[in-house]
């Protein structure tokens, strides 16, 4: 069974997938995927892959691992699908899994940070295809991503979940178990930091 290829999203003027459309996809595809329907699962991956990649790249200490991380998350999700009881919104479950994978990878990466990396290693890690964000020199984009990377992981994650992925505090509380007051504090800290960091050089 081959997946039909979706139209490739282009860069700067990319509309977000409308929440209503994604919701219609989910309801039927998920129940079919639960029963092992690979075609339905493919639809789900297609619907969410780009968002997951975006999230993983922003979350990971080593963003080059994002594709692997997204694949890992979808594999875990697929294996756990029979146990998915639909008490939780599918998207929040998906991002919960992805967040766990990213956090795990980050812990490992931090432990390995002391290891020396040779030039050869660096060369091997540049992916063959140029990444989407590299299309045009984007100083503002670079500043934003550098600033984001400096945030402590737990602040960064909640900031991403809320402002980039659009989860409400209610949902994030249910996904992470952290109380909403603490979540809002994290988002505030992240915003303050970004504002401070990005206002200085803001000429774009």
């Amino acid at each position: 069974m081959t997946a039909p290829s979706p139209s490739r999203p282009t860069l700067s003027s990319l509309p977000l997938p409308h929440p209503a459309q994604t919701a219609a996809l989910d309801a039927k595809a998920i129940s079919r995927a639960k029963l092992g329907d690979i075609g339905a699962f493919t639809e789900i991956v297609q619907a969410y892959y780009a968002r997951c990649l975006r999230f993983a790249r922003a979350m990971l200490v080593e963003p080059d691992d994002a594709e692997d991380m997204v694949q890992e998350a979808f594999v875990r999700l697929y294996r756990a699908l029979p146990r998915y009881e639909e008490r939780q919104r599918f998207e929040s479950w998906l991002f919960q899994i992805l967040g766990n994978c990213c956090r795990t990878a980050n812990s490992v990466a931090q432990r390995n940070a002391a290891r020396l990396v040779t030039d050869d290693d660096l060369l091997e890690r540049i992916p063959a295809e140029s990444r989407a964000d590299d299309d045009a020199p984007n100083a503002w984009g670079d500043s934003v991503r550098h600033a984001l990377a400096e945030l402590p992981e737990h602040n960064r994650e909640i900031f991403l979940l809320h402002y980039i992925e659009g989860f409400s505090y209610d949902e994030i509380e249910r996904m992470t178990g952290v109380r909403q007051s603490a979540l809002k504090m994290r988002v505030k800290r992240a915003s303050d930091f970004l504002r401070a960091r990005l206002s200085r050089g803001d000429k774009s």
Partner: protein
Amino acid sequence: MRNTRDFRDGADPVVRRAIDELQRLPAVADDAVANVVSAAAAARLLPPADEPVFPAPQRGWGRIALAGGLVAAAAFAGFIIRGTVTAPPGSPARVATTTAIAPVAYSTESAVVPIIEQFVFKAPTARRVAVIGDFNRWDPSVAPMARSSDGELWSRSIPIMPGRHTYAFMVDDSILVLDPRAPKTRDPDLGAEGSVRIVGRP
């Protein structure tokens, strides 16, 4: 309906521009989706070493038990009882089958409130199925399951106190089958296996 723009409106203008930048979706490699799906399918086909593989799954249902093959199911379930299990006299009358109930939320952490738990079991050729577990003292008459309209699935929602519970499904009053979708545990006193559910999430 969630609208990402609503959250952003409260933010500082610099932060909003940062959010705009971060919301840009990356391009997806042509084979990325296919690779993910292949990896997932491959992972799904490999059963964990200690789980039984049921015969003749159809359309990739994999590990969902087909209790229609009772002999096979019983062999993998690890034990069979023949004849009927009689309910002790004085046991409670059948509780009317309930349809789906909305989950109850905890009012406070310390209130010990039962949580509605749903049990689902695929057994197209069974005549009767009951949920039987420590929460109903393993009494098959208490929690008979209702059959779905297409005849394939049985389900029952039961209020259960928080904690760890063991259970199984009693098929046709004679065969005990584990829940293929649940973890198992081996009883330390008896050596027999039961399905496990930790109830604690409303």
